């Protein structure tokens, strides 16, 4: 019964075709009002126009730049904070309720504050993305540091490792391995931060395009924007998978445990 993915993809493609065709038929006959549901051919036309005129590129570039910056800064800060608190249990105990509170807060609500602090440009989106990326990485690193095997640690010390060498050769790899296992989530979070930030107030970016289209009730352009974002997210995810495979060769099983927990 089991069909490999190799033989599954024509069916998956056919399903996509059927869905598109159904959408087309239902909206063409106005069974579904095209004002609310758009029309696939018009969405296609918008996409073509965006890419042939080059209009989309600066917007896409801005969104990806924001994603990249938020991802890099959020990950770095998360690693540093996680390692610091992981190695100083007293500070961790002191800060624990605050960390819990900030983590429990739906952090998207910070977007207006960031817009006020950092303006409508790239800065406020990166700030939002960082707050989203940071916590996932932070908790993973904290866990990673706390779960370093005491025997491995003792062994490294007996072999002659200094404190600095323990940090570099034991704590750091332990921490970063957990970061890599949450890469998918982190990249996704950075992307969400960028788009939501743009959507809530900006002058550029794919989120801004969607916002503008929505302002004039151009449902086809809204859907086109969503399509662009989805394809980008899939490409980023594939990229992450490749990076992960190279960096986690030492791991017994492909790390995807932390894959689906948030977003």
């Amino acid at each position: 019964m089991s069909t490999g993915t190799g033989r599954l993809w024509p069916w998956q493609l056919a399903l996509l075709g059927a869905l598109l065709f159904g959408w087309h038929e239902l909206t063409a006959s106005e069974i579904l009002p095209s004002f609310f549901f758009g029309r696939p051919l018009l969405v296609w036309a918008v996409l073509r126009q965006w890419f042939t005129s080059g209009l989309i590129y600066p917007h896409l570039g801005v969104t990806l730049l924001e994603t990249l910056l938020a991802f890099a800064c959020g990950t770095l800060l998360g690693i540093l904070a996680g390692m610091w608190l992981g190695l100083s249990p007293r500070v961790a105990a002191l800060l624990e309720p605050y960390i819990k509170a900030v983590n429990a807060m739906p952090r998207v609500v910070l977007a207006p504050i960031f817009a006020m602090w950092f303006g409508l440009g790239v800065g406020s989106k990166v700030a939002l993305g960082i707050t989203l990326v940071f916590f996932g990485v932070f908790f993973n690193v904290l866990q990673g540091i706390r779960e370093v095997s005491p025997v491995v640690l003792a062994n490294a010390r007996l072999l002659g490792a200094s404190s600095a060498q323990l940090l570099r050769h034991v704590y750091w790899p332990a921490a970063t391995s957990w970061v890599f296992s949450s890469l998918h989530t982190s990249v996704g979070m950075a992307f969400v931060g960028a788009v939501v930030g743009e959507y809530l107030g900006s002058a550029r970016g794919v989120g801004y395009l969607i916002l503008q289209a929505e302002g004039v009730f151009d449902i086809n352009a809204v859907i086109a924007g969503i399509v662009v974002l989805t394809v980008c997210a899939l490409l980023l995810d594939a990229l992450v998978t490749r990076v992960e495979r190279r960096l986690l060769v030492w791991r017994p099983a492909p790390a995807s445990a932390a894959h689906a927990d948030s977003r």
Partner: protein
Amino acid sequence: MRDAVTLRGASLAFSTPQGRLEVVREVDLSVGVGEFLCIVGPTGCGKSTLLNLVAGLLIPSVGSVLIDETPVSGIHPAVGYLFQADALLPWRDALGNVAAGLVFRGMPRKEAEAEALVWLQRVGLAGAARRFPHQLSGGMKKRVALAQVLAVNPRILLMDEPFSALDVQTRAQMENELLRLWAQDRKSVIFITHDLEEAIALGDRVVVMSAGPASRPIGSHVIDLPRPREVEEIRMTPRFLELQRQIWEQLRHEVHAGQARTSAWTE
């Protein structure tokens, strides 16, 4: 004979939720330079704890630990430790693991890896240099761990039930390998095991620990079997069997005492 390791009246207690647990009490023990000392005792009596004291991972509550007849508190660079549990760095391949100690001690990476490869060859694993710990069998991991600790050339080698998890054939093979490597430079060894046969086959002397808590050495038996030894063959000799009977007499009593105490706790 000079002593490589001396314990003088060393006691160690853990504070547990149930109160103070004195694991070893007033242990006096010494290991001569170049001596292969085996310690046997019932499970849970405090053998690993004793070894951790010598390694400097634990500090005695009372008494002292001397290395080369000098008191120490903490890890001593002349001491190597082969742990009972898996202790390899999971993110380094076999070669990286064996090189680790050399790198920690300041050797340039290239040089350390060249030296590590020689050690992997000595334990018969040159072909697995690029494999990560999770890609190695239990016996291979133990070999890598052995190469790892021997690579830093410790004068004093502590081994905590290193072969207890291995199957019989692999185990005999590793015991012979260990004896061969040891014969080359006669490190001072403390070898912990719960297997009396293994202790007699390997050691110059076997020390028996009493059942815990508050365990201490209660007997020391010189093993006057000739070297070099082949562990499977030496087991058949009359002298071996005689020693085994003699030491077992003492050990049996402790094992039964230990079991009685453990079952009293769990009931």
